């Protein structure tokens, strides 16, 4: 490869990465990923974030721990996230594409990245206030969030199992650390330990699955795997069967699908609250992004094998998550189970396995991320040092003392419940997911997934039991004699926390009223990965049930 051609490709890419107004999208560049320089370009935002993170890591370690240093590093991290966001938006607007290779350059990736980055920004902003209050001086916490975010971006980009594995590990290792970041808390450490051990355990299964698929197809590239399974009719062979099952297990663990969810409540409860929000929102979303890509690009042909398992997992997850959440008293734990249940809903989008399913999936993740972030931000805003007031009873009468926070929490709860207008975008997400379930035609017989749709709504009714209970407690019960979280008169929420609450709830509500752009954005972002012709098999090719 000559230097000239590299220069040429680079200049073309650079000149068109920032599109001129009115320039037609047709001239968007296509990266040839076999050329290292173009591969580097295709990884642009990831590299920006990673390099920036490394620099910040050094800076964080350079100066002794102090309140200001923690805050400064946090603010710098925020800036870095926004820069990366800008880059992602630029790439998205430029409509760049890529040839075959280890990473994908498509709208789905950018859409997912934006969700992760938004969650990281929120998490970092919350962490700055939270760390200050809890006396956590180590500035590295923000850097760890950034590292985890880098891993997530890799996950969204990866079109090769190797890249995906790297992404998962980069993300997970950083989150293991974050989960136990509050070294003064035994709970935090316990959560981290459980997360770490079980995470590593599940990684073993994932890896073994990858190895078996590699053995069956001779490749770790998703496109190649998909093509070869189709070409050589590998579906149903022992290697592919076991491989798919084990990879499914690996992802199911990361997204906390029942029965692989048991780590989640403990870890969510133990981790520092902003990190809990980060795990519930971003980590889960990233795992889902990779999951969807792997499943649709590589395993489209074996749909009839994994469909039932995943269908079953989805139903189990929706049911168990919601039912167990009903009896939780600790608000973080309740939200943990709630996030398990929400994962069940997202799984429906994967089970649907259609373009619409993928769009709904993205839309749902966006809505879910906003609502979860908002809810955890409110918890951070109401927390005291040491976080002793996490029982839902502590929120009694919150409305009388902190009306705006109560209203924000209500919006988030109603959003997670899937209520229109007052819950903003939440209802639209659920609507989209139901749409996907009902439109889905699997096995070529055009049978909609009515059972899943009904399950979504039935479990949603169950979920009203706990989402509404919190609202009821906040609005309809008097402030407790000992005050609880509502009784603490002094406003402890830092400005950044208030911003996170405000922005996420405002977005939640505004997008609920005017969702047209978000809908069309997710709709256009999805089809790129879910357009395999092999996916819709003729019904004659289907083995009988």
């Amino acid at each position, binding site marked *: 490869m000559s230097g000239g051609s590299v220069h040429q490709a680079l200049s073309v890419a650079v000149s068109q990465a920032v599109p001129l107004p009115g320039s037609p999208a047709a001239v968007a560049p296509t990266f040839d990923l076999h050329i290292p320089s173009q591969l580097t370009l295709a990884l642009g935002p990831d590299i920006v974030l990673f390099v920036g993170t490394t620099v910040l890591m050094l800076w964080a370690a350079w100066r002794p721990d102090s309140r200001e240093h923690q805050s400064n590093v946090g603010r710098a991290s925020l800036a870095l996230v926004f820069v990366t966001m800008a880059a992602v938006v630029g790439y998205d607007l430029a409509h760049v594409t890529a040839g075959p290779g280890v990473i994908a350059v498509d709208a789905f990736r950018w859409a997912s990245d934006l969700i992760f980055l938004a969650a990281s920004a929120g998490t970092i902003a919350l962490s700055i206030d939270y760390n200050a209050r809890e006396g956590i001086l180590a500035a590295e916490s923000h850097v760890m969030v950034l590292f985890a975010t880098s891993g997530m971006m890799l996950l969204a980009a990866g079109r090769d199992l190797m890249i995906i594995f790297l992404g998962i590990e980069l993300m997970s290792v950083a989150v293991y650390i974050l989960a136990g970041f509050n070294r003064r808390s035994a709970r935090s450490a316990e959560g981290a*330990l*459980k997360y770490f*051990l*079980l995470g590593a*355990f*599940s990684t073993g*299964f994932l890896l073994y699955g990858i190895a078996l698929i590699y053995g069956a197809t001779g490749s770790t590239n998703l496109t190649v795997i998909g093509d070869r399974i189709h070409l050589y009719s590998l579906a*149903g062979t022992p290697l592919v*069967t*076991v491989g*798919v*099952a*084990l990879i*499914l*297990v690996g992802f*199911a*663990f990361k997204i906390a699908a029942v*029965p*692989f969810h*048991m*780590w989640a*409540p*403990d870890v969510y409860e133990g981790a520092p609250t902003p990190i809990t929000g980060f795990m519930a929102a971003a980590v889960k979303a990233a795992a889902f992004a990779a999951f969807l890509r792997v499943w649709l690009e590589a395993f489209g042909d074996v749909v*009839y*094998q*994994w*469909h*039932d*398992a995943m269908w*079953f*997992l989805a139903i189990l997850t929706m049911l*168990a998550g919601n*039912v*167990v*959440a*009903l*009896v*939780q008293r600790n608000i973080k734990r309740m939200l943990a189970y709630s996030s398990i249940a929400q994962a069940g809903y997202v799984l429906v989008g994967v089970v649907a396995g259609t373009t619409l399913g993928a769009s709904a999936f993205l839309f749902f993740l966006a809505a879910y991320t906003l609502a979860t972030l908002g809810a955890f931000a409110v918890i951070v805003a109401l927390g005291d040092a040491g976080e002793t007031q996490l029982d839902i009873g502590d929120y009694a009468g919150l409305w009388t003392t902190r009306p705006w926070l109560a209203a924000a929490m209500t919006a988030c709860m109603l959003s997670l419940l899937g209520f229109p207008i007052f819950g903003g975008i939440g209802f639209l997400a659920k609507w989209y997911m139901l749409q996907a379930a009902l439109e889905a035609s699997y096995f070529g017989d055009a049978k909609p997934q009515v059972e899943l749709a009904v399950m979504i709504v039935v479990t949603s009714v*169950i979920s009203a*039991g706990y989402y509404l209970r919190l609202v009821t407690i906040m609005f309809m019960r008097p402030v407790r004699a000992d005050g609880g979280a509502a009784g603490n008169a002094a406003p402890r929420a830092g400005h950044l926390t208030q911003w996170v609450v405000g922005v996420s709830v405002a977005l939640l509500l505004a997008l609920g009223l005017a969702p047209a752009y978000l809908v069309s954005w997710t709709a256009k972002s999805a089809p790129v990965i879910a357009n395999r012709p092999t996916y819709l098999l003729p019904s004659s090719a289907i*083995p009988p049930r």
Partner: protein
Amino acid sequence: MLFQTAAAVAGGAAPHPLSGTAADWVWALPLLPLLGFVLNGALAIFGSAKAGPADPSAGSHDGPDAAHGVPGGNGQDDGAHADAAHAVPSQRHPYAWLVSVIGPLVVIAAFALACMICVAMIAAQPTTPFIQRYFSWMPVGDLSIDAAFQLDQLSMVIVLVITGVGALIHIFSVGYMRDDPGYPRYFSYLNLFVFFMLVLVLGANLPVTFVGWEGVGLCSYLLIGFWFSDRANADAGKKAFIANRVGDFGFMIAMFLLFANIGTLQYTEIAAAAPAALPAGGALVTTVCLFLLLGCTGKSAQIPLYVWLPDAMAGPTPVSALIHAATMVTAGVYLVVRTSMLFSIAPAASLTVCVIGAVTALFAATIGLKQWDIKKVLAYSTISQLGFMFVAVGAGAYVAGIFHLVTHAFFKALLFLGAGSVIYAMHAAYHETHSHEDAQDMRNMGGLRTAMPVTWILMWIATLAIAGVPLFAGFFSKDEILGTVFARAQGSALSDASWLGIPGGALLYGVYGICLVAAFLTAVYMTRLMLYTFHGPNRTGDAEHSLLREAPAVMTLPLVVLGVLSAAGGFLNDPSFLPIAPADMLGRWLEPVVGPATQQITRGGPAEADPRLSAILATVASVVALAGILVALLRLKPAALRPAREPQPAESKVESLLSHKYYVDEAYDRAIVTPTVVFSRNILWRGVDGLIDGLVNLTALISRWLGDSGSAAQTGETGTYAWALVLGVVIVLGTVALRI
């Protein structure tokens, strides 16, 4: 003219003979009393708001009650402390004088208008009803119900009775109720009643009639419970309304049946369509008529729905006279005549009317024998007399029925007003001495003829009339009923039909026999009433005896008028064998209305019985009546009675059964009211609702139990979690592999 006047036959080119006459003002008939209601009602609600606290002469204690026109308890009782405190009875409503003008005046005006219309009608001799249509009330698809009035000979007669007798009773009320603090309220209700009664009678279709039908029920409810602070009064009002509602159920179902089968509810159209659409004697028309009959038994207090009327005596006595004797309770009779085109082609239903009437007549008369409350006696007498009317209309003697309705209005109104006059005097006397004796119990009366001679004489006239003593009004009407029933037993549509397997002819003879017995008993209990009230020694009490005096002229004057009518009213329909007045006036007058139906019953034969037979039957009836009076005079000893406050001699079993009204109220209570309440409370509310709620809560409990179990599985031990993970691996592997 204000309203569009349609010819009776839609599209008829020729104008109705009545249009352009006073009949054009028929709309004003009900509107006049309605105006009275509005004005008096306004006075009742707002009238003394200014006069109350601002008027220094008004006592402090009568402020809230009098101010809003609501009496505190029994108005007469409340007078007690009022008199003690003030020389003038300050309970009297500040605008009572205005009410005394408005209340009677609107009804008198309506009566005058009715007379003018009647004159016009006599002149025009219309053969079809005069229908005035105001606006479309319920135009829905093929259902078209107009707000329309229909004036024909039948409604004319009843309108005259309502407004005429009504006007007299209004005037009487001025005297009777003047000192009641709820005076304006009383008159507004009374005016409203007249309005609804006129709507009932004038309605050109069943729904408009139904408006009046339920409206009079409402007024009855309000007036029975007029002194609502006494629980019994309020209970009685409610009982009347609900019993009537049961009847109204029948009325409504009859309407539905008619609409579903002939598509109209207008009387003229029903009459036109019925013969073709409803097979004569068929199940359908019989069903319609039976449901109508249910409605009539409610309104006219016949078995099985008569129970409310005796209780209704809780209202002020003029109300009993107007509503529960003269007008409202006869609405059932009116309705049967109004729908005679249906009843005449449903012989089985007609016979049912007959049987119910006869049984009720006898049944109520027996109870009347042993009542002590003067108004209760009259109430059972009313039920009994209504039974006679039912017998008449059931036997197809529509003219006789209406005739008895009219004469009964005269003499029963007189009896009630007379009783009212007595009660007024008794009450005034007890009031003076602050005694709490029962002013209505005959055992506390006796010998009143010396104190109240006018009332005494007039009541005797009415008694002779109701007993059927010749030449008094009741003689003619009752005799006509008996005669017609006897005649119908042979050679009529009814005699050939059968009722529950009994031949119609035999049945009608039986009815005739029962009616004779009832007539005998009527004479007995009425004479008893007169004897105990006016004759023998006085039992009121030593202090009170001297205080008893005749009512003022405003009350006695209406009595006199009614007395004249009771004595001479019979000549309205003078039978041909007794040529005193123009023969059969009422019959000829009503011919255009009931003619076709009568023809249907008699199969074209003469409507009247043979004059010779009539004369014989009349003689029999007269003998029975006189025998009844004689028996009572001989057997009853007023001197032996003891006042109600003293211990009474033991009753025989039969007497006890009669004085307890055959325990029907108790039976209804045990069989219907209590079980309904208990069933609703324990089975439906606590049971079914509890079960549904229990299931709902159980679902929630199950969810929580599942949640608790799931939560318990979360032991906190990493080992458990690893096992769960591996279990999941097995499940997933199994599911994926088994799909191969």
